[in-house]
């Protein structure tokens, strides 16, 4: 009986002959951020743990409320900094060298294809796009992983998604994943792995694939995964400046032909239009044309979902030489300093500023209502982020729509939800 990628990684890490229902297994890397890791540190100290399993395999990435939005946020960074010093943890990243964790970790070559990684952040599943088994966990899990280098897992079943047909112009990874979540629902993949495959996924660039695995958790999934291929390896070499060495084991990492899937779901995308998720669930999807005219107060372009260079290029191409609608606020957040620098080199930053956008430092910021773009009562945002729950970006009576960067940038020009073909 064949195995899926994630099963192979779990089997390798757990050093067992076969997988049962549960494994308590070694992890290759564990990490948390400035809101989840302080709780892990508190638990670690409270129970009297006094050592860490490996000083190089633990990461603290300060990205949520940074640059410190207030005293508490500043104190949380200090807690992590002093813990990292005490235990000689190498990978502590403050804002002098940091970015949105799930992208930053890839640039630092800390997560590689074939890795078993746990992160105290639900969007850890993003990392599955490179062929890692990446699971979001909690703070107590992180405390134990830091101490023991281990984590418990229920061995998941896998749903395979095969996308067929040709994508229309203006349709990409974000539309595919929103459409998929709209089809299966916010608990459609509960406890399961979503493996994205088929000929269409092979043609997608990594930035699109990362958007898809990023939102697997929005369908309740344990993680999302894509088989690594030549596209993966050349992307990783580029963003790590060749720090990542591609091994034969990475190249061989594929699901077996006779792997057992709980279900194989085929999705024909030929007729798919750009998709928008309406308040207050990511599964509440509609084609963009059905929402034409919905007025917006703010646009957010960025986050672990859509803050990569391809996303910024798409948005800038639409905004170039134009002005955002008067009275509308547009916030752009490149996901990492490296992406900011690349955007600067390509002249995208200038495009954003000239169009009337505010370009912010790399942070999770407004995506979770942290800072840098909080919504007031009754305000409506269109965001390239991942969640549109009640109060997600601020006031409990504010509204968040989710879309691709192309729809977000087009809508920024009109002040209402707009199909990109209306602009171009």
């Amino acid at each position, binding site marked *: 009986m064949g195995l899926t990628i994630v099963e192979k990684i779990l089997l390798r890490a757990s050093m067992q002959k076969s997988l049962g229902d*549960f494994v308590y297994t070694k992890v290759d890397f564990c990490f948390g951020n400035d*809101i989840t890791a302080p709780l892990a540190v508190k638990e670690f100290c409270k129970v009297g743990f006094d050592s860490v399993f490996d000083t190089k395999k633990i990461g603290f990435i300060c990205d949520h*409320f940074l640059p410190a939005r*207030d005293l508490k946020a500043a104190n949380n960074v200090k807690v992590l900094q002093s813990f990292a010093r005490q235990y000689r943890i190498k990978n502590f990243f403050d804002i002098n060298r940091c970015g949105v964790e799930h992208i930053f970790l890839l640039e630092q070559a800390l997560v590689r294809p074939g890795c078993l990684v746990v992160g105290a952040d639900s969007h850890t599943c993003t990392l599955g796009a490179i062929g890692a088994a990446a699971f*979001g966990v909690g*703070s*107590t899990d992180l405390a*134990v992983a830091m101490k023991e280098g281990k984590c418990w897992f229920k061995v998941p079943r896998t749903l395979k998604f095969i996308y067929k047909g040709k994508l229309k112009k203006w349709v990409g990874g974000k539309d595919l994943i929103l459409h998929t979540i709209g089809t299966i629902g916010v608990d459609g993949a509960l406890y399961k792995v979503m493996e994205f495959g088929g000929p269409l996924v092979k043609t997608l660039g990594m930035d699109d694939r990362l958007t898809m695995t990023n939102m697997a958790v929005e369908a309740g999934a344990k993680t999302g995964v894509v088989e690594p291929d030549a596209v993966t390896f050349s992307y990783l070499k580029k963003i790590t400046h060749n720090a990542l060495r591609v091994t034969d084991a990475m190249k061989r990492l594929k699901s077996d032909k006779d792997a057992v899937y709980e279900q194989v779901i085929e999705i024909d995308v030929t007729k798919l239009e750009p998709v928008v998720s309406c308040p207050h669930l990511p599964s509440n999807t509609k084609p963009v044309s059905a929402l034409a005219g919905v007025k917006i107060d703010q646009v957010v372009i960025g986050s672990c979902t859509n803050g990569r260079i391809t996303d910024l290029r798409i948005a800038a191409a639409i905004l170039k030489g134009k002005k955002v609608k008067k009275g509308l606020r547009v916030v752009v957040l490149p996901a990492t300093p490296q992406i900011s620098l690349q955007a600067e080199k390509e002249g995208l930053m200038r495009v954003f500023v000239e169009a009337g956008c505010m370009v912010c430092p790399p942070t999770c910021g407004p995506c979770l209502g942290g800072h840098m773009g909080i919504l007031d009562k009754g305000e409506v945002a269109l965001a390239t982020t991942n969640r549109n729950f009640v109060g997600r970006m601020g006031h409990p009576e504010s509204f968040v729509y989710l879309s691709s960067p192309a729809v977000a940038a087009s809508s920024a020009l009109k002040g209402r939800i707009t199909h990109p073909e209306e602009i171009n």
Partner: protein
Amino acid sequence: MILKGKAHIFGNNINTDDIIAAKYLDSQDEKFLGSKCMENIQPDFVKKVTPGDIIVAGNNFGSGSSREHAPVSIKGCGVTAVIASSFARIFFRNAINRGLPILEIRETADIAQNDMLEIDLSKGIIKNLTKGREYRAQSFPVFLQDIVKAQGLTSWVKLKEGKRNEGAKD
């Protein structure tokens, strides 16, 4: 262990932003987080809770972010257990790891606001004292039962560590 309290009813897909809004995540204080529990969707929820009360919800309770502040907040406001038709996976593991009792039953719609419930945790039996009915929760696999018995993951690890050390002495 027997828990007894009145039921507070919630619907499907209650997410962790509902349970505790992200703006409060810079705190790790159980009492403070408890005082903000469910603020976005039921601003007066905390005032209605008597210590020992029980949350009853539909499908996919605790969806969304990985914030363990969610089970911490639920415990902090005085709620002693959550019953739902299903749980989102990270909330599920956080509750187990934190020692917050959670129970899965199909008949959540049978329970009404303020029904008095009695939970026998070791047997997984929930008595609805108001309606005179009984529900049986799905039992946890042995692996998870051990963590629950230890009252959380870190104590489970400490127990294992203790056993290892004892073994080393022999």
